[in-house]
């Protein structure tokens, strides 16, 4: 096999990995701050893809504007969901919060999926390309603008998100709530506002992932399950409560998947996942970087 093929596959893998990283960051953020194991995140990915299609194909706008539309739309949908569903639940009772909330996200995903089915119908909405067509020469091999821009944009967004979390006042407030919600509220952080915004941002990250992939995976109501699966896989392998670790693990997983395509089809790769899980369960049951403090959803 030629070396260029391998490099191309690695680049493809980096693109995939960045998408998984976006999903995983959204999941880890929402679980870390709101204590919600979100299984509706795949649906926000789907919403992002639909709005990206609206921006690109229906309105004929450029990729940046389409991405912005998708990000804003998922952010707003996320905020609405948080205000309508999780805020009342937080008021009505905290006993068995995690169990209730888990089932709630399942209900939410059912609603979002079928709203998409009703409004868009059981059709695939795909764009021929996200960026303009054409290829670029890079170190002696060719890569299409499309793929290159997915990698660049996804990684840029991850960096922006990281900078936001580390450098801005709001980001600091979010991290403070993650550490200790009561102490944060004592120092004047408006908890319910932080919860809402965080949920919105988590949803936006998933929406951006979906928007970037519109040229590769067309929009469809039930498309969210696979990115959700990969996202949770990354979160669990990296370890809950360690958001930074999600990014290298996601990139590694993406590259591994892409290179693995040489030897095995997509379906057989799931067996590989299973092996990873088994090894992990025996050696590091709380994830590679996990500390074992987060007992998670159904703890008492």
């Amino acid at each position, binding site marked *: 096999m030629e070396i260029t093929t391998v490099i191309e596959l690695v680049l493809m893998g980096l693109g995939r990995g960045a998408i998984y990283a976006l999903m995983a960051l959204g999941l880890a953020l929402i679980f870390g701050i709101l204590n919600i194991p979100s299984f509706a995140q795949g649906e926000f990915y789907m919403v992002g893809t639909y709005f990206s299609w609206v921006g690109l194909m229906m309105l004929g706008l450029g990729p940046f504007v389409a991405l912005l539309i998708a990000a804003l739309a998922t952010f707003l949908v996320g905020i609405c969901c948080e205000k309508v569903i999780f805020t009342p639940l937080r008021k009505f009772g905290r006993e068995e919060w995690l169990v209730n909330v*888990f089932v709630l996200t399942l209900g939410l995903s059912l609603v979002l999926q079928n709203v998409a089915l009703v409004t868009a119908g059981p059709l695939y909405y795909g764009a021929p390309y996200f960026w303009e067509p054409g290829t670029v020469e890079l170190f002696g091999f060719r890569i299409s603008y499309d793929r290159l821009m997915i990698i660049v944009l996804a990684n840029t967004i991850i960096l922006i998100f990281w900078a936001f979390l580390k450098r801005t006042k709001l980001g600091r407030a979010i991290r403070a709530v993650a550490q200790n919600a009561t102490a944060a509220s004592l120092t004047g952080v408006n908890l319910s506002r932080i919860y809402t915004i965080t949920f919105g941002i988590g949803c936006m990250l998933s929406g951006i992932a979906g928007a970037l992939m519109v040229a590769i995976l067309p929009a469809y109501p039930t498309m969210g399950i696979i990115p959700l699966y990969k996202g949770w896989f990354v979160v669990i392998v990296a370890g809950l409560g360690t958001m930074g670790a999600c990014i290298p693990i996601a990139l590694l997983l993406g590259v591994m998947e892409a290179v693995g395509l040489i030897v095995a089809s997509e379906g057989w790769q799931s067996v590989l996942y299973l092996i990873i899980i088994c090894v992990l369960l025996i050696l590091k049951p709380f994830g590679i970087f996990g500390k074992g403090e987060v007992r998670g959803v159904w703890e008492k």
Partner: protein
Amino acid sequence: MKKISAARIELTWKNVIMLLCVALIIATPFIVRDSYVSHIFITALLYGTLAASFDFGVGYLGIVNFGYAAFMGLGAYTSAIAAISFGINPWLGLLLGGAVAGLLGLATGVLTLRLYGIFVACFTWFLGMALMFLIAVTPEITRGYLGLSVPHFPNVWILDFTDPLRLSYFAIIAILSLPILFLMLYLGNRTRMGLAFRALRGSEPAAMACGINPLKYRVMNFVITCFIAGTLGSFYAHYIRILTPSLLQTSKTIEILAIAYLGGRRSLWGSIPAAFLIISVLEFLRPLEAYRFIIYGIILILIMIFYPGGLARLITRKELF
């Protein structure tokens, strides 16, 4: 330790009404004699029992088996392939499907049940997804998405499984699900095992101090629920008679889980009325197409926010334990 009394049924009004309801459920398909009605009753009983056994894991020990449909599908495929390739009698297949699902449950349980909460849910989910993909990529054995056509049960005595009214299937699922439900209620309430479950639920460190090994009881619980899923799965295979990998997908688990939660956590029996309610209402709303799932989702959300006790809490305020 509390003395465990033998199972006995007191003759109170509530029990009489409950028995009448059971009798009504069993009698209706035989009185109405309509294949559509029997189909709904079969599906409702099947999903109700599945949801009840899911509840046996969640309600007693907080084990969320998010790959539950995969264990059911494994039982279904085992029994179907055994019948097709090796000519094994589907009646034996019921046991075989259960046994294979139970064995996988044992392996999974020993590996995962040292962990709790979200970890168990995710690992069982990954396992379920892997099983689904595995079935999809081995078409030479399972025929993948082309669909595996399965023989029906051989006719026995007065049970004729070629009858379009499907009454025999209803009889079988009723015969299967009643003992399963009774067994779970019995195990959970009248045996030392159930006492251990409840002790673990109450406080794990305290239970451990009394000499209860949490891993052992968690694995036992897990294997029982997986065995039930496998058995019911192989019934499903011989009833529906066409299997595709989509039987193992996550949305099936979510259906079962939704029934279990609407029925009421830790009630076990609550799943049966919930299954009848949900499945018949969804059938009734079929002309609305996708809108009915929006309504369903909204109802699920509303109930979880305002009435997390579910259906069982409407009927009785008493906690099961």
